[in-house]
């Protein structure tokens, strides 16, 4: 990011402004959470970072305490009176360095700690507020800030131009027609009044176009009424990870405007954990307004097609044992728990659950913007050991996951930890199993 300040160049007034920013970010729930932590440390084993490195700094309570001690120092009467006793700390360069290392570098915002906290503290929500403070100081780690900037400036996180997007979709439509043998198979663009607008992860048109055709094949088989938008197609919102609410709202507004312009009934989100969380749960809060259309995951749509008998799947086409990784933002923090299982049970012959699973599943380590923050790559790969061991125990040959960030991380883990597994999206497996011509 051009003009990005260094930690050393920050002036005392910058730190004061950051504390004011913290004060502004804290709502009632946040303060209640900050006042509740008793540093019992029982949350330690809920974090894959701590399980991997055993470092006290990786304990969720320790990460949370970074924010608590600054809160106490400036915003809590007890902490101002009894600073040393309460463990209150000045917000200075040394403290900020710790914040960057822990809040960005030791957390994927997966929320497993929140579920296991005796007090019920929403630790990832507080950590994201801490990130918001750092973002206000211009201290978002480079890879993450450049991803956010690219999305802000070009409309998607990979800088794909409108021409490139439209041409890619046209090419994929030809591919779909060839695959289905049906010249009426479409990837509709800007179809007004369709049932839903489909947002994709930019890595789909850029690197993995077949995941987009997989979805299109299923929609086609079901006779779905859907469309893509030439104006906006990005399901991701990396400002969720950076903590910058203003940019997050800007990106969210684009999705909302694209849906409104095409007058669709629903916004359907491709397989993306944080994309689901951002568009389904956070966007209305960032924009401070309700949406006039439904927002749902593509998993809900496909599961609906199966339930309604609009598509039939042949599990014999996927005979290798398959296990499922639950993306944190989709499942634990998003409430989409059973749909992916329902689809897989229809699409594959041998489905094996990981242990633990669903809302207690371990993070793969790719969330929280970790894949874009190269400063923390070694730590991310190492922390992925917990997920790798979980996968290995299932003895599955395929790991399915409905999230593109998870796909990237799992593919890297498969190599790094020599797991000997293929990594696929849930829709890919469903598309391989879909029986055409039943409609």
């Amino acid at each position, binding site marked *: 990011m051009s003009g990005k300040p260094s930690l050393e160049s920050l002036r005392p007034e910058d730190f004061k402004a950051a504390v004011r920013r913290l004060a502004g970010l804290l709502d*009632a729930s946040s303060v209640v959470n900050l006042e509740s932590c008793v540093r019992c440390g029982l949350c330690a084993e809920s974090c894959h970072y701590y399980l991997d490195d055993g470092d006290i700094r990786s304990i969720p309570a320790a990460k949370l305490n970074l924010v608590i001690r600054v809160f106490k120092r400036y915003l809590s009467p007890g902490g101002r009176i009894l600073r040393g006793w*309460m463990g209150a700390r000045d917000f200075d360069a040394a403290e900020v360095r710790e914040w960057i290392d822990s809040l960005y570098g030791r957390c994927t915002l997966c929320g497993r700690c929140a579920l296991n906290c005796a007090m019920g503290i929403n630790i990832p929500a507080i950590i994201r507020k801490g990130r918001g403070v750092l973002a206000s100081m211009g201290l978002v780690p480079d890879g993450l800030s450049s991803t956010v900037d690219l999305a802000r400036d070009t409309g998607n996180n990979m800088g794909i131009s409108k021409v490139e997007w439209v041409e890619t979709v046209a090419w994929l439509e030809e591919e779909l027609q060839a695959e289905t043998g049906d010249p009426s198979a479409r990837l509709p663009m800007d179809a007004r009044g369709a049932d839903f607008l489909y947002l994709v992860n930019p890595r789909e048109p850029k690197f993995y176009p077949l995941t987009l055709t997989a979805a299109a094949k299923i929609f086609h088989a079901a006779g779905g009424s859907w469309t893509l938008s030439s104006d906006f197609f990005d399901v991701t919102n990396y400002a969720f990870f950076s903590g910058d609410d203003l940019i997050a709202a800007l990106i969210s507004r684009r999705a909302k405007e694209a849906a409104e312009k095409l007058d669709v009934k629903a916004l359907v989100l491709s397989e993306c954990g944080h994309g689901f969380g951002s568009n389904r749960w956070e966007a209305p*809060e960032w924009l*401070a307004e309700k949406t006039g259309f439904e*927002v749902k995951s593509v998993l809900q749509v496909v599961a609906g097609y199966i339930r309604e008998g609009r598509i039939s799947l042949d599990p014999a086409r996927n005979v290798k044992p398959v296990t499922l990784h639950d993306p944190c933002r989709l499942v634990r*923090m998003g409430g989409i728990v059973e749909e992916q299982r329902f689809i897989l049970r229809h699409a594959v012959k041998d489905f094996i659950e990981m242990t633990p699973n669903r809302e*207690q599943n371990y993070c793969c380590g790719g969330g929280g913007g970790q894949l874009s923050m190269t400063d923390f790559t070694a730590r991310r790969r190492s922390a992925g050991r917990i997920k790798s061991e979980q996968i290995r125990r299932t003895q599955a040959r395929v790991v399915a996951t409905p999230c593109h960030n998870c796909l990237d991380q799992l593919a890297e883990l498969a190599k790094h930890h020599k797991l000997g597994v293929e990594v696929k999206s849930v829709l890919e497996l469903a598309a391989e199993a879909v029986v055409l011509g039943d409609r």
Partner: protein
Amino acid sequence: MNALRWGVVAAGFISLGSLTFLVFKALSRGRAPFYAAPQGRASSGIAYALGRGLLPWEKESARLHLGAYLGGIVYHLGVFAGFGILGALTLNIDLPPLVWMVLRLASAAGLAAGLGLLAKRILKSQARRLSVPDDFGANLFVDIFLATALAASLRPAVVPLFFGYSIFLLVFIPLGKIRHCFFFFLSRISFGRFFGRRGALPPLKSERER
């Protein structure tokens, strides 16, 4: 003696008033109105958070640290018993012997649990490093409260000391970590509301059944 009694009552009001003020101060920051359409029921999430969600088989952290979890429950029950003794002695309430016995047993068990948790915090390197002075102090202050409560319930000569110490503790509560006693319930409610609206909690099946 009467002065001490009145001192306890006054300290109790100061404590409750200060805690209530702190809670209202926190709540005055306003809560997010939740514009996103719910997928589940906040009330179900809250019921889970305050009930089943606290049970050890629902919570991996409690299962893994069953000793600390049970110790914490006994400790907090002991604290309630300690306040029961304080209330009875301050207001001269004539309790049946059985109730006195229960209060004494509970505060004794609470004291043992509290000392155990304090020892753990001091002796285990990780817990020690995670702690701030307030964490040790709060535990110690409450342990002393339980010890004096127990002693006062057995020996009337200790009652003035118990009252004097209770005045200190009651005034200290809003300043330090012990104030989490008020925020705990709000935190659990906020947790249940958040996950309940999203349909993530309560889980469809208990984790142990999977």
